[in-house]
């Protein structure tokens, strides 16, 4: 307070005119000015307080996230993927450790020259060009394409694997020369059998940015892209360990916030047997070789060995295959192009389940079953087998235009007479009203043939535990109409424009004519189509796996099984977490006697029919087989050679099926390959892949170290 004393000093009237002498307002002015200062100080403090309140209390949570984003990082310890082993525990896919060199791109970015010097040193060390390395570690964006890094910016980028320990030590011992570069041990996939069953096991590649956006846990993780690696990805992958750490401004770890240890993936035990698989792949390759020796353009083949009773897949092959090891650490563009090259047989495609081909006469089991079940045919009745059958103004003839006279259905199957089955299919088509498409006042069409085909599991995926399966094609009036509705615009456009991209003018003219016909009345299911259906031509496509399932149904007495590759799943702790039971898709609407009749006829095919020549010298008395040849005609590529078989006939155990496109007759190319497989399985003139033709009764054992031992003797237990 201003003292009252000074007031007393104050003269009543100031001495006006005296220079420098204060007037009365001076004191008030001074007081006022200190008051103004108080107001200024107060408003300043309030401003600071209000701003502080706004930042910390109103916007605190937002900035909390920003702060966490600044200072919290997740470090992922990848879980070791589970093994994939065959029925006796042979690993088809296992892990090995490798020394890898990684580059932390954010660490390089912080360096004065953006890491150029470090990349140059690493390039010199690894014998790679620094500019190539720079490309591989740059982030992929909309404008920056491969080569680039598709993962998280904070995940170190792998630039070299299988590095020698000497080079790795150079990096480890000279951190001052290699800041941001690390050498570490990583588990990578290894394939002890090389390309064996490559389509079945599949390959891995790093999760893409889109996948990471959907599931952040996939950041920096390898994901199965095909085969079992894809379909059992989550089972095999396990759970990555995640360590949340707070880091400082320089990205250095300062504190571990939380830690979740990795949990290894489960082991897949397959019903597939590596030896049978090898036998099958060799047989397919020999089949191709035989065809090529006869100057056929064959360049691929597919085969299936199914357990006829359980639907378990014993072998599943498509040749050519590929070495999945190419994908470890990233496949080169040239290698990937090769896997997609049609001239090389498109090795990436698994034709056993992705390929759809007309089955030809191998389809006649369906036609015979339809005739006997729905068309009133009997086993001992005689049917005329002329050399051709006139339908409308077209003549459909037998293979080689042979006439066999009056024969039973048994003989029709054994000798593969087409005209007998044409007649049944044409009659069924006429019964259904011919060109009538299920419209109008009449009863709906029965469509016996397509119904039977679907009952055999054709025309839809088999449901095998692999991705990418085809549905195949089963045509009837309804599906023909649906297809036409969908395609008519294309047909009509092509009818006008033709196929200028087609090199072969004859083929272009053929396709244009077809488009023109389809544009006009492609919705019609014609009598000719129905006759072709009966012999598995033109309007029917099946995958080798689908047809194998159909033959398994004939063999096992009518049960249509969904095939399975994985027999059991063993958890990382060695306990069996899942055991596959046969999955029944349906039962054939066919009497057991009819099935028995067809089996008998198929046995006749091998002993005295179209395949008897192929099986000359085969001990059919010990191992009686049944089978059916198929020779499907295509416009240009040569015939598709089929042979589907099962055995032993009296107690069917396996179905063995082979298809060799672009080769020739079923009996000539596919059947010998099938014979080779049977010999391999049972050890005829060679070692048996399956002792006594038996699959192991029990599961292999997982050792505590994660490796897998063969199954114990019957009644025994796994040692733990």
């Amino acid at each position: 307070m201003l003292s009252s004393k000074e007031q007393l000093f104050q003269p009543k009237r100031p001495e006006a005119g005296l220079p420098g002498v204060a007037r009365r307002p001076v004191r008030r002015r001074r007081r006022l000015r200190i008051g103004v200062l108080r107001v200024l100080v107060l408003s300043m403090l309030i401003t600071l307080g209000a701003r502080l309140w706004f930042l910390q209390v109103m916007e605190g949570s937002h900035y909390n996230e920003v702060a966490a984003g600044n200072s919290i990082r997740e470090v992922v310890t990848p879980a070791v993927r589970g093994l994939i082993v065959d029925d006796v525990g042979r690993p088809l896919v296992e892990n090995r450790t490798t020394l890898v060199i990684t580059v932390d791109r954010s660490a390089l970015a912080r360096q004065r020259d953006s890491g150029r010097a470090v990349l140059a040193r690493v390039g010199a060390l690894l014998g790679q060009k620094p500019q190539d390395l720079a490309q591989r570690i740059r982030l992929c964006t909309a404008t920056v394409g491969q080569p680039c890094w598709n993962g998280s910016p904070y995940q170190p980028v792998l630039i070299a694997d299988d590095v020698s320990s000497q080079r790795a030590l150079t990096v480890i011992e000279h951190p001052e020369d290699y800041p941001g570069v690390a050498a570490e041990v990583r588990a990578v996939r290894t394939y002890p059998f090389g390309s064996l069953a490559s389509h079945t096991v599949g390959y891995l590649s790093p999760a893409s940015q889109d996948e990471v956006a959907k599931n952040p846990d996939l950041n920096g993780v390898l994901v199965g892209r095909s085969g079992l690696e894809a379909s059992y990805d989550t089972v095999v992958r396990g759970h990555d360990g995640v360590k949340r750490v707070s880091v400082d401004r320089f990205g250095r770890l300062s504190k571990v916030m939380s830690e979740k240890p990795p949990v290894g993936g489960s082991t897949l035990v397959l019903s597939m047997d590596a030896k049978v698989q090898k036998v099958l792949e060799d047989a397919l390759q020999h089949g191709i070789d035989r065809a090529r020796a006869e100057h056929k353009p064959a360049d691929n083949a597919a085969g299936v060995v199914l357990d006829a009773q359980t639907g378990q897949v014993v072998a599943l092959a498509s040749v050519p295959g590929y070495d999945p090891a190419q994908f470890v650490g990233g496949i080169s563009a040239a290698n990937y192009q090769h896997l997609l090259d049609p001239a090389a047989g498109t090795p990436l495609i698994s034709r056993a389940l992705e390929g759809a081909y007309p089955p030809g006469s191998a389809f006649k089991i369906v036609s015979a079953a339809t005739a006997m079940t729905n068309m009133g045919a009997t086993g001992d009745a005689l049917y005329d087998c002329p050399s051709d059958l006139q339908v409308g103004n077209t003549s459909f003839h037998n293979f080689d235009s042979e006439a066999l006279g009056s024969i039973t259905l048994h003989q029709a199957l054994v000798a593969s007479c087409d005209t007998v089955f044409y007649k049944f299919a044409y009659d069924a088509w006429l019964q259904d009203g011919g060109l009538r498409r299920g419209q109008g006042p009449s009863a709906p069409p029965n469509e016996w043939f397509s119904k039977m085909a679907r009952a055999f599991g054709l025309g839809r995926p088999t449901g095998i535990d692999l991705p990418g399966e085809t549905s195949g094609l089963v045509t009837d009036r309804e599906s023909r109409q649906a297809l036409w509705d969908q395609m008519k615009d294309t047909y009509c456009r092509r009818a006008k424009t033709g196929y200028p991209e087609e090199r072969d003018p004859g083929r272009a003219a053929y396709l244009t004519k077809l488009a023109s016909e389809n544009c006009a009345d492609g919705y019609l299911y014609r009598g000719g189509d129905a006759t072709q259906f009966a012999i598995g031509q033109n309007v029917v496509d099946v995958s080798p796996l689908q047809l194998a399932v159909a033959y398994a149904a004939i063999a096992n007495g009518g049960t249509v099984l969904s095939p399975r590759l994985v027999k059991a799943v063993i958890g990382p702790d060695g306990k069996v977490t899942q055991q596959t039971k046969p999955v029944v898709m349906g039962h054939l609407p066919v009497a057991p006697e009819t099935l028995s009749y067809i089996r008998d006829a198929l046995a006749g095919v091998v002993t005295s029919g179209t395949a008897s020549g192929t099986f000359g010298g085969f001990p059919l008395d010990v191992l009686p087989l049944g089978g059916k040849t198929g020779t499907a005609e295509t416009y240009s590529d040569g015939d598709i050679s089929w042979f589907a078989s099962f055995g032993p006939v009296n107690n069917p155990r396996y179905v063995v099926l082979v298809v060799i496109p672009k080769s020739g007759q079923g009996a000539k190319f596919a059947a010998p390959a099938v014979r080779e497989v049977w010999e391999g399985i049972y050890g005829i003139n060679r070692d048996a892949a399956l002792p006594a033709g038996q699959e192991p009764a029990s599961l292999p054992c997982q050792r505590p170290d994660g490796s897998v031992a063969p199954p114990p003797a019957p009644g025994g237990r796994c040692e733990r």
Partner: protein
Amino acid sequence: MSLGMIRALPAQRGDFARINSRRSRHQSWLLRVDWVLLLAVLALSVLGALLVWSATKQRQEDVGADPQLYLKRHLVNLVIGIGLAIVVAMIDYRYLRAYAPIVYVASLVGLAAVLFVGTTINGAKAWIVVGFGFQLQPSEFVKVALVVLMAMILGEKRDDRRVGVVNTPSHGDVLLVLGVAALPGVLILAEPDFGMAIDVIIIVLGVLAVSGAPLRWVAGLILAGALVAFFVLQFGLLKPYQLDRLTSFAKSDSNVSSSGYNVDQAKTAIASGGVLGKGLFHGPLTHGEFVPEQQTDFVFTVAGEELGFAGGAAIIGLFGIILWRGLSIAARSHDSFGRLVAVGVVCWFSFQCFVNIGMTLGIMPVTGLPLPFVSYGGSAMFANLVAIGLLQNVYARSRDDDPYPA
């Protein structure tokens, strides 16, 4: 100017007697200390020591140095500063002010020397290394000298007992003050340390305004300052980093520039503290060294992050107490000298407080001004505590009967 008429007034005698009867010279020194001010300063200093410790602990550990090094030095500075403050507070300021010109000249020499042998920190050549890791910043001491000198020039005549009336400072006084302030001001600008220069200008303006000098001077000076600022900006006399600092606070998303980064990190650190903070020594951003210059210019961010709104508001509140007490001491001082000293100190602290905290909150430009009592730094600590000693001195003497005892 002796008129003698006031002394003749009879009513005065009893008054004198009453005041004389409780002459403070014989009073307990305990009663002559502004305890509120003292406790607020001590609280702020202790808080400051903790924050400096927290800000430097991790940084020191990272380089393998003593994590408590800054704490220890800060405490040493604090003890020396308190010692200085006690000395300054004990000696009657009417004797003490005789030393002001010496301090003034010494700091001028220091400011001049700094231009030749100084160390450049953050663009300003403002420090002289004295060894043992200690540095001197003469511009801090110049503020003490300036405050006292200005109070002498503007205040002394008005307390002339022979005149007995209160004089307003003459134009000559004002010019003299401006001259006295301009000398160090130019040297500080030459460093260049704009923040400190503006600090000096604010002190001069504040003291002039309260001294009773004609408002024309105050208004004129403000106008002149605005014109100078205009020309400086207009003709690009600022170095890019200076312009960057001045403008970065106005741009919300200026991550590209380094001061933009500083301000962003400072704001983030403070705001992420929330209401109660992350706990002392537990701020992830402080711990992670995200905020640069954190023990000096950005020390408030440690409080914001680790002590939250509670801690930040407490610091602002403590400043409120100190500044309020300073103004009260100014208001109750018997003589203009004491009053102007107090006002000068208040202007000095409030400007630095506002600019420093405002900078970390993103509402003021980035300047190199430390937060009094809290920031690490010996020179500032000494100068600030000497200033508090002066305030205590003025407080103690304002209880005395007579500024010029017979």
